[in-house]
Every structure is written in C-alpha cells, then in structure tokens.
C-alpha cells in the first residue's frame, strides 16, 4: 500500500459529497478501468455558482480522496473559479500524493472541468436536454 498523507487518509475514510445529483446541470466522466480509475462528477449550478457537487469514483484510495477533495474545493465557487482548480492544487490541498499516483488518480479536476463544460455546452445549445 502506498504511503498516503493523513489528509488523503482522512478524505478516503470519510469522503465528502459522494453520490449522484438528480437532474444535474452538468456531468463529467473521465478515466477507464484499464488505467485503474474512473470518476463521474455531477454539478448543480445556480447564479453561475456551483450550488452542489457530487461524485462517484471507481479506484484506489488516492482516487477517492482526490474526488472528495475536489468536490469540497469546488462547492460554492463560481464556474470560472472552479475551472481554475488544477491537479497540482488538489494534490497540495491533500498534503501531497505519492508520485506514481499523481497522474493516474488525480483526475478529479479534469472530471469537474468536464462537468462544467457539459453545463456550458447545454446552456449554449439553448437548454436542450
């Protein structure tokens, strides 16, 4: 088992915002089982802010902690602010990730970004569902 920071362990043992949002405003899915981790982020947007963020993750301890941390960091932020969350910032908030886990498990920011883009695309498309 890799050596995880206390913060990673804490988020892994008590992940925040696990679940799905019914009728989400945006959904972002990244990863595949071959590389090991899959994440799906669901967002609810109100007044250009992330009113709610939830996720489901298939993956290792780091992947679950990353998802939890991203959801916590993103909640309440404006869309622009949330888009600026980087994998590095997530790893820093988690007090570091094992080197070999940085790329494969640190997909949370990407999944969130995809969910926001999904929302923006839908909006552009005239609210078609």
């Amino acid at each position: 088992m890799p050596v995880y920071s206390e913060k990673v362990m804490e988020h892994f043992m008590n992940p925040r915002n696990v679940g799905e949002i019914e009728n989400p405003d945006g959904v972002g899915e990244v990863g595949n089982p071959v590389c090991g981790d899959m994440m799906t982020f669901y967002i609810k947007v109100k007044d250009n802010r992330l009113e709610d963020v939830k996720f489901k993750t298939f993956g290792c301890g780091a992947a679950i902690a990353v998802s939890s941390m991203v959801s916590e960091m993103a909640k309440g932020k404006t869309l622009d602010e949330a888009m600026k969350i980087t994998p590095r910032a997530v790893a820093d908030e988690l007090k570091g990730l094992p080197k070999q886990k940085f790329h494969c498990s640190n997909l949370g920011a990407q999944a969130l970004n995809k969910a926001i883009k999904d929302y923006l695309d839908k909006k552009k498309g005239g609210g078609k569902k």
Partner: protein
Amino acid sequence: MRKVYLDNAATTPLLPEVREAMLPFLGEDFGNPSCLHSWGDVAREAMEDARNQVAQLIAADAEEIIFTASGTESNNFAVKGLALAQQNKGKHVVVSAIEHFSVLHSAKTLEKWGFELSLIPVDKYGMVSPDDVRKNLRKDTVLVSIMHANGEVGTIEPIKEIAKIAKEKGVVFHTDAVAVAGTAPVDVKELGIDALSLAGNQFYGPKGVGALWVRKGVRIIPFLDGGVQEGGRRAGTENVPAIVGLGKAAELAKANMASRTEHLTRLRNRLLTELPSKIKHVVVTGHPQDRLPGHASFCVEFIEGEAMLMLLNSQGVAVTSGSACTSRALKASHVLIAMGLSHALAQGSLLFSFGLDNTSQDIDYVLEVLAPVVDRLRQMSPLYAKFTKTSKGG
C-alpha cells in the same frame, strides 16, 4: 481491535523453533563455513545439516541443493543459468504467461541476449495445458520453465505431465515451486523434473534465503562468480543463520505437512464457499479444486482492490490484491489478464492466504467486516451505479 493476518503468500511469520535454531549463528557460532578451524566447522556442519533438511523436503539429494538469497534469485539463476549452459544446443525457451516476474523477466532478459521466447497461455482457471507446451517445443528448445503453482490465483499446474513431455524431447525442465515447497508435498523424482526453486519465507523460515535444486548431471552456469561456495555455482560467504533457519523450517514442514495441509485446506474451502454466497457479484479466481491449500482468491466486481485493502486494514485485516493501483508499475496483474479477465474485474482482485495461526473465527471476522467494506465502495462506484441502472431497466 482484532488483527487477522491473511497475507501468508507474501510472507509467513518465522516459527519460534526456527528462530531458536538460528540464534546461535547470530551469536557465538559466527564462523565462516569455508574456514578450516573449529568456528568454520560449526558453521559448515550446521549448513550441511540444513542442506539435508531442504533436500529431504523435496526428496532430493543434499549435494543437489544450492542455497540462494531468495526465490527470485533461484528463478533468475535457473532460467538464465540453465539456458546459457546449453546455448550451443539451441536458443529457445518456453515459459508460461503467468510466471512470477523473476521467471518472466529473466526469460525476457534471455530474449535480449539473443534467445527466442515462447509464452504459453493459460485457460480461465490459470491452468497451463501440457499440449500447448508440447506444440511449442522445437529442435532448438533448451529450457521449459512452468511454475508449480501460481501464488496469485492458487492454481496448481500439471507439472508432472509437462515434465514428461519435456523429457521426451530432451528439454531441461525447471519449476518455480516457491508457492508449493514447504506448503504441499513435493517429490522431485516423482515429478520427473530437472530443477526447482523454493524460498524460506513461504513456509515459516526467514526472509532472504532460498534454494535452487538442480538434478545431478544437469549443467548450469554459475550465478555469482567468485569463490567455491556452493560448488562454485553461487559464490559468496553463505548466510549461515538464514540457511539454518531454512533447514529447520523445511524439517518442520515435512514433519507436519499432513496436518498443516488439512488445516489450511479447511479454512480456504470455507472462505471459497462462503464469501461468494455472502457477497454478491464476486468471482473465485484460479482453479476451484486444483489449488494451493490456504489460498483463496477472488475478484469483487465494480470496485478496486487497493481501496478494499485500505478499508480492511483499518479493521485489522491484512490481505493483498493484484489491482493496478496496488502495483508500483500501476498495471493490472498479468496473471489475471492472461486468464482472460477484463481490466475492470481484475481491478477488484483480492487474495487471502491462510497460515498456521489462522482459525475459523478469523473467517467469521473477515466475512463480517468485508461485506460493509464492499458495500461502501460500491455505493461510491460509477460502475456499480451503471450496473444497477441497467439491470433495473432491463
């Protein structure tokens, strides 16, 4: 909190009797077995006793035993040393796709050195077909190396049949018996093989010691050049305390083989039956019957192994997994993939390996704590969500 160690495939603990046997050689009996004085004599005699004990464990002759520093070293030694010794005859070697990396990577090294390599596939149980081995033998084949049993999925391979085929074609046959020797009966003469690897920490001996058995008359290139230790085939001052421990562990394993096997098989059978009935969407990996005593392996669908390991560890249970995330290389187990499992399923790999100290209560405890662990991770899993939606919808 209850602590349950179920990772004996990684290493068994050291038996107190083994430790006791080793202690003098970490103290007053510190001599170098190569030396011609009383200190040397004591060390040499202890080492030769150990050689006898290890030989008896596999029904071999003591002079055919070479002590090494690990099962990995024994495998490197055998694969490279046996092939190189015969390179004038041919440069083709045959190994299975599910060998331990110490065999597989040694074979790949031979490839870099100009040998050709044939990888024998396995069926869904991780079983090598002797016919497949036969089909892959060529005029220039000099070595076949097929493991006795796979430590990851527990399947015991038809070594005797394969050895017979190799013998008919005059090809040297080596088996990596690290998972078997000391755990289940092994008789090298009855198996009809030429070389065999074993390791001490698989049967309550110390770590950092193993042995390679090479049948008399079979040529092997020395692994370490230097002095004349181990018949000049593996130079370097011997690790006497570890070798003595290996010998003691071999003696105890032989003496108690039947009762140990019975105990381990009972525990493993219970888990193999009860786990899949208690937790849905779990598949047994490896052969249902032809498997190592004490070895129960599964894939739990929709979730990943490392996360399971961590949650089980927080409940005091030590197990292992072949998931990509648990490996440093971040690749799913080559064994599970060779058996045809999907990457997603291989990610949920979980291996329980029982030891002498385990009890039926340990299984009660594991079943009690595993179910909520699986449930919790499934509630988090997008794959499980998809599965439940599709099965409801259809």
